[in-house]
């Protein structure tokens, strides 16, 4: 159920776009919905981050993943247990760009006599990394459609991505990579009993959706050609608020665009917000310098301990009997 239903939803979305465009609603799918999606995405994303930021960070609670800064001759692990801003920036860069924490992953196996072994388990790290980086490169590549002239940096990225000139047009590595990674991320959710058990429909839905976006994109590029010039004109029109209709673009493009719009709308309300959250996680983005620099809690409540005079009042005689010093005789 929870695996199939999200797939059906994605198929229905595709059908919706197909039927809509066939019925001539190209402005709806080509203009109105993308605009709504863009607005929802931007406002939703900002709203969510602002909501997070409105809550303070009362305590400095980094997870320390290595030796602390202590005596000068003890070697600190500066990036896994940073004690200053530079260390934190490196730690965050390693986390965001290279998935440092996932790289640590191990797999526990229960053997004879309830013995446990911890094997290396880097596939999730690799799969996740390939997926996210491919996605990023693909998004950057798509800027070709928005920008005229195409900036050199995008051309360069395209050149690297298309290193294997196995077909015409140049075959992009990331197109294959993202499909392989998505397939892996999907299969581990279905095959591993643990992951399958914890997975929600909301975990399958983005996989199908992004998968469908990738497949429609690849189909357009290599198999069912669409009119790229017309698409570029449409996209240019969107950013210059010139909505002159473009003819003969092909329905596949509208499906692709519609799915991207759905992804953008879905994004701020879903787990995909980990994109923003990873930067704000207090166990990662703070220095472990608590004993060096006082961290301020804006709502620090006024709570007093049971004071020493109250304590002495209760125990004074007993204290005096064993010769413990007292403040009041």
């Amino acid at each position, binding site marked *: 159920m929870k695996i199939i239903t999200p797939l059906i939803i994605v198929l229905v979305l595709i059908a919706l776009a197909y039927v809509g465009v066939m019925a001539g609603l190209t402005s709806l799918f080509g203009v109105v919905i993308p605009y709504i999606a863009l607005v929802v995405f931007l406002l939703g994303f900002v709203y969510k981050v602002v909501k997070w930021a409105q809550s303070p960070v009362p305590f400095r609670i980094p997870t320390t993943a290595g030796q602390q800064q202590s005596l000068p001759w003890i070697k600190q692990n500066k990036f896994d247990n940073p004690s200053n801003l530079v260390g934190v920036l490196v730690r965050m860069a390693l986390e965001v760009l290279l998935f440092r*924490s996932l790289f640590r992953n191990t797999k526990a196996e229960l053997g004879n006599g309830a013995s446990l072994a911890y094997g290396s388990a880097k596939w999730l790290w690799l799969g996740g990394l390939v997926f996210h980086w491919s996605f990023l490169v693909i998004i950057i590549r798509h800027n070709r459609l928005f920008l005229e002239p195409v900036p050199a940096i995008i051309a360069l990225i395209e050149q690297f991505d298309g290193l294997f000139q196995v077909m015409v047009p140049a075959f992009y590595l990331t197109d294959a990579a993202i499909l392989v990674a998505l397939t892996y991320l999907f299969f581990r959710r279905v095959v591993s009993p643990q992951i399958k058990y914890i997975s929600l429909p909301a975990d399958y839905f983005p996989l199908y959706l992004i998968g469908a976006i990738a497949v429609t994109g690849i189909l357009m590029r290599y198999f069912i050609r669409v009119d790229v010039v017309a698409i570029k004109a449409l996209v240019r029109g969107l950013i210059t608020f010139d909505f002159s209709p473009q003819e003969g673009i092909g329905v596949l493009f509208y499906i692709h665009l519609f799915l991207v719009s759905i992804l953008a709308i879905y994004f701020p309300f879903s787990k995909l917000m980990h994109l923003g959250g990873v930067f704000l996680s207090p166990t990662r983005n703070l220095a472990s310098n608590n004993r*060096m620099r006082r961290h301020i*809690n804006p709502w620090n409540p006024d709570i007093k301990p049971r004071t020493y005079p109250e*304590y002495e009042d209760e125990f004074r005689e007993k204290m005096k009997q064993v010769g413990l*010093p007292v403040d009041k005789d």
Partner: protein
Amino acid sequence: MTVLKPEELTKNIEETPSLMTGKSPAKEWIDTPAEFRPGNWCYSAKAPAVEALKAPNARTWSPDDEDWKLPEDWFDIISKGFKERLDKYRSLKIFMDVCVRCGACADKCHFFLGTGDPKNMPVLRAELMRSVYRNDYTLAGKLLKKYAGARPLTMEVVKEWFLYFFQCTECRRCSLYCPYGIDTAEITMMARELLNLVGINTNWIMDPAANCNRTGNHLGIEPHTFKTVVDSLCEDIEDITGITIEPSFNRKGAEILFITPSGDVFADPGVYTMMGYIMLFEHIGLDYTLSTYASEGGNFGLFNSSELMKKLNAKMYHEAERLGVKWILGGECGHMWRVLHQYMDTMNGPANFLEEPVSPITRTKFENAKSTKMVHIAEFTADLIRHNKLKLDPSRNDHRNVTFHDSCNPARAMGLMDEPRYVLQNVVNNFHEMPENTIREQTFCCGAGSGLNTEEIMDVRMRGALPRANALKHVHEKNGVNMMSCVCAIDRATLLALTQYWVPDVEICGVTELVANALVMEGENEVRDCDLREDPYEGVEE
């Protein structure tokens, strides 16, 4: 309660169909009610302790009762408390929103490894709370309900929270592997605060907390008895070494206030570590004092609420100021150091009446403690050894083959890893590390931290102890390790239960106990033939 024999439990863990043995449960977790059975929950807090702390809803009740005697508006209290905490803690908001259920944390929890219970996977432990969050705070949850993994807060959910948030030891091992640093300890702390609001507490947390508040230490030892017990430890030191030591108590004008968990004063084998501190300070001629008022380093408030944590912790600075010491030295304890390192200064600082800590022996400035003004004993001792201030004969520990258990909090909430190891290298000749996935930041919990070190939950404890026991057994069999050292007083109590159950031939000790054994002290008996446990040194006939 009866606990399975180790062989039986081993068989049970191996053969019971579970996610750890590759078998999926028939029902979704959201449709599976919490099952209370002997050995998997802690006794409820008794009314006097709850009253003493002025905590809500003191009463007599038990988790296996149908009726938990909650206030009529329990739903509103918890809902309001949840909202309040979302507004006060960015951590909670982020951890509720960003989990992608990648599963990296699933097999990192010692309780999951030992029970195979899906709700002991950190991801699901958090989903227990996240599901309620989605229901009340997210659009998807409001619209799609169960399909979006949302469910309303019901009495069944509250009971489930109690069961599973008291089957978490706040060890933070899962947070190490999480790509977003989601820390289940933080979620557990929030859940326990919410439960506390309606009077759902355990006795082994509230009773020690009430004692700490009144007498200064978790066992409720009154000041005169505290002094008598320490004096009797000094008599033992005299018997063994021939040296008479008279530590001072509550002495104004001492340079340093020394605070250690009271478990070191009262519980075997912690007492040997206490004897170790006293001998070490005598050896270097330290100007220090002990306090009967602040006689507990540990902080049971951490396991209940941030308010109680602050209230108990405040005693340290209060006493330091009253005595007029320059700075505070802290003994070996795990969660105590979580509080001291990550909360103390924020909660109860700034301690402007203290000075930046400088070792009076080596003149080393403890730069890393210059604001909180509290130094860890392992940092202090490592510095002494580095400067050759201790006369050490490590061969006196030759009858010990030692390993080191990193306690969760010093490892993952501080990063104290190489200081104790440096000390150990200098005081023992036989040292072997446990496998690398089980030490340092990847260390496994003793299975009973965060207020779970009580008898009635022994089944879960011994299951949770399995990963640590496994690693220990490995070096016990391969390298002949017979002593596991640690820097934690709760460990010294809980690891003892662990070894007695899983690896009976290994003993537990504090690092400072081994330091004192190796100390060659001025004026000691010409023949010092046994260690602090009165076990003969290697080569000495019994």
